[in-house]
């Protein structure tokens, strides 16, 4: 961190260089050595999306009792970076799956973040992950749903709509949100329903413009569509899986959601200067329960929302500097703590099993 002092510059660079030009190779290989085994602990993993083009996606580990954060844990453990744009992370069957969209890879690690396998995701950009019955599902931005076998890591894919984002699996069917994001201003308006036995898209459901986020509680599917950022607003909807019926859920300016059990948290007014609001919604009965946070909490620049057994997490970002993770106790909506995530755009928090 110590910037070059003038004296050091003269002493180390100019004088010897002028007197005796040495063809020194500066910084080629000094990053290739294996560091000492890295210690980190904690039940929670924070995924940082990073800034486009900077190869700075990272995963940090947090110990909630000691409140200690171990930044860049994947790099420290495996001596290689995740790459560009960390999109999603998921725990399934004693492994962690990390989808790195810009680098077109899904990394599979053990619960201590040791790299087991790098899945190529067929040269496509993985966006969101889901899992069921020994298979991991990933939406690929190029318009596909991939199925990865967790025993031999083989991959096959099937066509869905344009620019799929969220994916949820239930009862032998996968539901994929076709955002159509890069077709702007003609955003997508459908969900693809993929039959997992035949592994083909069997039908589509019509939803609001630009559907991205999907959350599931039993057979209830919640869909968050972002609208067109102009005259068509963002909308939260619900669908009972198995029926084709999609209905609106009444929240104004919903920005992001997170679910744990039957508790769906809805963050609204993310960029309101006064502060965002987080509502609690009963996902099973589809009714509003109450408010978790009001604008009094002064949460501006909310970037992501995650829910785990004990905590609710709001990642904040200004897109240019490292993000801040705000942590609340879920039972008593009391602000527990906050910490710097040492990465840009804190994307998600996942909980590791004991």
């Amino acid at each position: 961190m110590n910037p070059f002092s003038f004296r050091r510059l003269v002493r180390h660079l100019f004088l010897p260089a002028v007197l005796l030009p040495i063809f020194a190779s500066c910084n080629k290989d000094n990053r290739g050595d294996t560091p000492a085994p890295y210690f980190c602990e904690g039940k929670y993993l924070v995924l940082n999306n990073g800034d486009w083009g900077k190869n700075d996606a990272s995963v940090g580990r947090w110990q909630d009792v000691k409140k200690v954060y171990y930044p860049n844990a994947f790099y420290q453990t495996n001596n290689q970076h995740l790459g560009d744009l960390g999109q999603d992370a998921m725990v399934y069957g004693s492994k962690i799956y990390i989808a790195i969209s810009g680098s077109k890879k899904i990394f599979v690690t053990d619960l201590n973040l040791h790299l087991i396998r790098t899945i190529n995701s067929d040269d496509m950009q993985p966006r969101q992950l889901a899992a069921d019955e020994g298979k991991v599902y990933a939406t690929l931005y190029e318009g596909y749903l991939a199925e990865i076998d967790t025993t031999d890591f083989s991959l096959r894919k099937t066509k869905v709509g344009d620019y799929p984002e969220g994916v949820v699996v239930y009862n032998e069917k996968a539901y994929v949100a076709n955002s159509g994001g890069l077709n702007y201003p003609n955003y997508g308006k459908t969900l693809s329903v993929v039959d997992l036995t035949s592994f083909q898209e069997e039908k589509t459901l019509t939803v609001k413009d630009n559907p991205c986020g999907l959350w599931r509680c039993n057979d209830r599917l919640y869909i968050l569509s972002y609208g067109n950022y102009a005259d068509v607003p963002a909308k939260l909807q619900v669908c009972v899986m198995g029926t084709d019926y999609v209905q609106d859920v009444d929240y104004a300016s919903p920005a992001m959601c997170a679910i744990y059990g039957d508790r769906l948290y809805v963050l609204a007014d993310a960029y309101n200067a006064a502060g965002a609001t987080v509502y609690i919604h009963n996902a099973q009965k589809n009714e509003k329960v109450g408010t978790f946070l009001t604008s009094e909490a002064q949460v501006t620049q909310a970037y992501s929302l995650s829910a785990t057994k004990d905590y609710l997490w709001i990642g904040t970002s200004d897109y240019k500097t490292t993000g801040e993770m705000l942590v609340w106790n879920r039972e008593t909506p009391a602000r527990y703590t906050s910490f710097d995530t040492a990465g840009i755009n804190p994307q998600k928090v996942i909980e590791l099993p004991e």
Partner: protein
Amino acid sequence: MRKRILPFFLATLLGAFASQEAVAFDSGISRADTPLSPRSDTLSSVRVESAGRSDIRSSAPLRQMSRARIDTLAQEQLAGVLNSFAGVSVKDYGGRGGLKTVDVRNLGAAHTAVEYDGVDMGNMQNAQVDISRFELGELSVVRLEMTGSDDIFSSATRQLSANVLSLESARPLFGEGRSFHLSARLSAASFGTWDPRLCYEQRLDKDWSMRIGGSFLYSRGDYPFYVQNGNASEWQRRAGSEVRNGRGQWELFGQTASGQWLAKLMYDQGDRGLPGPVIFYVQEPTEHLWNKDLTALVRWENQYAERWRVRANISYSWSFTRYRNDAAMLRVPEVDNYDNHKLALGAVVSCRLHPDWQLSLAEDIILAKLDSDMPESRFPRRLHSATALSGKFEHGIWLVRGTLGLIYVTDKVDEGAAAAQSLPKRADRLHFSPSLSASCALAEGFHLRGSYKDSYRMPSFNDLYYARVGNPGLLPERAHQFNLGLTWGLGSKTPDGRKDAALSVELSADGYCNLIRDKIVAIPKMFIWSMRNVGEAVAAGTDLSLHASYAFSPDISIALQAKYSYQYAVDVTDAQSKTYRQQLPYTPRHTGAATLSLLTSWINVNYTLDGVSERFSIGQELPTYRLDAYLLHSLSLSHTFPLRGWKLYVAARADNLADTQYEIIKSYPMPGFQWQGVLRIIL
């Protein structure tokens, strides 16, 4: 640790190393490069001196390099010339075709105006000039003026811009009995690079001459680079970095009893791959850029009665750009076309009221429009008027120059939604821009100088009207520049410009402080970014510049050209922000370069060192975003063989001898070792 701003006096007392321009011996083609130089028919080794402009005597820092020096150094790239100027950095994205913009003292590329033969090459669309587009072989002088120009007989744009890069081509000079010149350049460089050039000059009659020339550049650009990624580190070759470019120009020069004419036509057409940032684990560049640029200029100048001088010019530029992205994830390849049209009318009138007093009034009117087929295009049209009233006083030891500037901009946009948005009040687009500078000669070859300049950078069309991101209510960026400097010169000059002493030294040391307000920054707002005036920055530092030469004999001399800059440039927008008082992105604390040249009648040898200290790619000084310091070694050789009736110029250069892997912009690796060989036949 954060250093305090070095007191300017301390900085200047550090052993002022300052410099003026070209060095003693002339080993290339010489051309007088001033518009109103006396008609000379001698093609001899006349020193190239730009109308007596020297950094030593300027009231504000002036950096320049002449054709002769460029040839001696075997410098073929404009970026290479600019990197040797103290206070200047080139933001380079790598490769021959990579975007290169000029940043002076951290004000940003938009605050440096680029003028080519008096035509503003600026782009209303994005307010940046890509200097990789210019062909150094066409130029006779490259000059950069910071905080204003002492030449008040110049365009309003030049006088009102924070910094001006002037590129000039010279009128042809014909020796006795010669009525034409022909020069051909053959050049080959590493990574499959070829750039031949042909230029023909013809004397039409005693007052008129013309020049016609063309050049072509092809570069495969597949340089190897090392991806640093721990265990997954590997060597790769840059893909998608090829460039093909053709340029043609035609110029007509005329001399009248008391004035001159210039008519010029330039056409540039090319295409290049955009390799994009290096993303770990993938390398699939899919972007491409085509361009067509046409510029037409007519300029007239006249002197009346020893006292009045007038210059008027009219120019038209058309710039077409097509961008294409064939990424697999796009359902249909993205193709965007942009058409920029610009009509500029300019005039300067100068009056020498008194041997000591000169007054000038300059006006530039630019009409520009942007057409594009992007969805939600706004088709902006702009009227930009810049007026500069300047006065200069020179007497004895004093030189004082002051300018009152007025900038007025008005835009019109189509498209219902944008038109309905409230456009800013007229007053927001009308600005006064004063500046004042002075130079005072002290004893023993020292000069003391100080200057203040208030300048504006109008928001570009992209800043204002780009779909969703643009903000029509943007105010211009304002920069307040303060400069205090000490210069020292040794080795007097005779009236014809020759140095009569063996040793010549020119040093300048400038301390500066720039305050930037209303910085135009992209602010995110729920996936959609928006341009806002929210930035405030302070940049302070020192620029030291040295040119020294010593002649052992008429055949042998050595020369040293060196620069060093210290920059403390921090963000002061929001005290709660993590970037508060942290060094601005891509701003090194220390930058330095030195070229040692051995100039003989048989060969010129130059060795260059170029060093930049560590920088950060974001506004926080964190290890993940650190860009390492680097030091580059270069060697170049040149020689001109004077043969019977013609000359042969041969040059070779090897850059980055140590194959250092470095980046200027994060994730855009620069080439390692590369070479270039040039053969020029001059008839």
